[in-house]
């Protein structure tokens, strides 16, 4: 394994994978607790249209996906507010539209090819140095944005009305959270692919929530699950010659099962210190 790590492509995969895993896991805890878990699924379909647009226009697909996904995230927030739609309906509209546009554009660009497949199913071992720099930089930016708004996001997630009364601009924070999620989804696309990226947002968070008795602990546990799954999935993919994306998601799920059983075994934690 040590010898393998000397390869540049593996170092790039681990570096990008770990940063993206932590960003997904941290945002995931907020999204799952807000009952917005499916936003990851919806935005990934929209990002697919962005990838197809990038291939059609012959620009970096990751960058095109970023622009399209962030634009759609802003539109989802507006649609929720203006059209009085529930979040899942707004997501449903954009996710179907994203998939349809993606298929149309890919067909027009005649790019139903290996590159498109690498976005659908992820191909982290083929990640380019430019993409690594983009992934690490943006994932770090997502984490810094969450850190700077940590208490506000926690307050809003826990008790939206009191947060508003405390002067927190919850509308702006909703938008920030959606934009950060769109960025993270686009980054995660390269790790596990469009079809599985929602798993990196939802499963580590759901697993961490099984055992945490504080919010910080939930974020820590979620990040630990995501990092372990990405590192383990990459390792398994090399050793067993299986797709890294599938291995990562299966490991996330196994971690969820283990932590669920730990919770069951422990019973209900006591309330008092």
């Amino acid at each position, binding site marked *: 394994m040590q010898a393998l790590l000397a390869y540049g492509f593996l170092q790039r995969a681990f570096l990008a994978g770990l940063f993206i895993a932590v960003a997904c896991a941290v945002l995931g805890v907020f999204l799952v607790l807000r009952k917005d878990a499916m936003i990851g699924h919806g935005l990934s379909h929209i990002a697919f249209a962005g990838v197809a647009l990038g291939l059609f226009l012959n620009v970096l697909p990751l960058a095109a996906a970023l622009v399209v996904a962030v634009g759609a995230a802003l539109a989802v927030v507006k649609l929720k507010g203006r059209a009085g739609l529930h979040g899942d309906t707004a997501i449903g509209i954009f996710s179907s539209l994203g998939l349809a546009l993606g298929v149309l554009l890919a067909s027009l660009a005649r790019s139903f090819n290996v590159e498109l497949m690498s976005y659908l199913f992820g191909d982290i071992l083929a990640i380019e140095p430019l993409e690594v720099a983009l992934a690490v930089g943006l994932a770090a930016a997502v984490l810094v944005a969450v850190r700077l708004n*940590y208490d506000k996001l926690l307050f809003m997630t826990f*008790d939206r009305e009191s947060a508003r009364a*405390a002067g927190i601009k919850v509308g702006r924070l909703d938008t920030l959270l959606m934009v950060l999620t769109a960025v993270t989804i686009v980054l995660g696309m390269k790790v596990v692919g469009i079809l599985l990226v929602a798993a990196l947002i939802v499963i580590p968070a759901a697993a961490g929530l099984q055992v945490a008795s504080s919010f910080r602990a939930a974020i820590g546990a979620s990040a630990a699950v995501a990092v372990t799954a990405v590192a383990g999935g990459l390792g398994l993919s090399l050793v067993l010659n299986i797709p890294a994306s599938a291995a990562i998601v299966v490991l996330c799920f196994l971690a969820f099962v283990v932590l669920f059983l730990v919770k069951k075994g422990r019973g209900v934690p*006591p309330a008092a210190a």
Partner: protein
Amino acid sequence: MSLVVLRRVSFAYDGTPVLVDIDFTIEEGDFLAIIGPNGSGKTTLVKLVLGLLRPTSGQVEIFGRPPAALTDRRKVGYVPQKATHIDPFFPASVEEVVGMALLSGSRPGGRSGREARARVHRALGEVGMADFAKGPVGRLSGGQQQRVFIARALVTSPRILFLDEPTTGVDAETQDSFYEMLHRLNRSEGLTIVLVTHDIGIVNKHVNRVACLNQRLVYHGDHEGFCRSEAFREMIAHGNHLIAHEH
């Protein structure tokens, strides 16, 4: 000094009037009960004062400014209705719930962690919940959770505290000690308290002012005057009860 002033305030939801022509002040040091039947506009009134809703007409001022222009929100504490109807699986410890109101983790150069922790523990001490700081809030009883939410409202050292139906679902014994605690905060800390309730039975030992709402302000004054008022007789006639005043 008037902390809150409402001038000819009206509010309507989709054209249906909820509050009509309310003129009203809350003075520093008041322990005010806003009472009235369900749907009388009590919660709406508090939301207007906090700036969570905007009046259809009229003016609202808190600390001499419109609510939207109040920059120092730490002066105002709020415990919303159904505060204790939280997700029991939300992974927040008691000290996290109280500390979130300080927003210290969101401000570079804000309160240091040590100072924030000291404030959280002081607020928890005031409501008798210091021993529960590390435990998950979702596992506490309704009465204990209510104290934690009050600690969260107190942690910024507010000058006025709004509580909307704070004892819903809390047993009678716990309610008594809860009102004792509010009484102490009002008397010894000088905290102005505004308590919304549909149960005039709580207007027993501690409240010194009463505002009775039924779309309009049908009574606003001291407790003794309220007991002699037409508004009080109307409420009794409609099934609300009153425990004898014990000043």
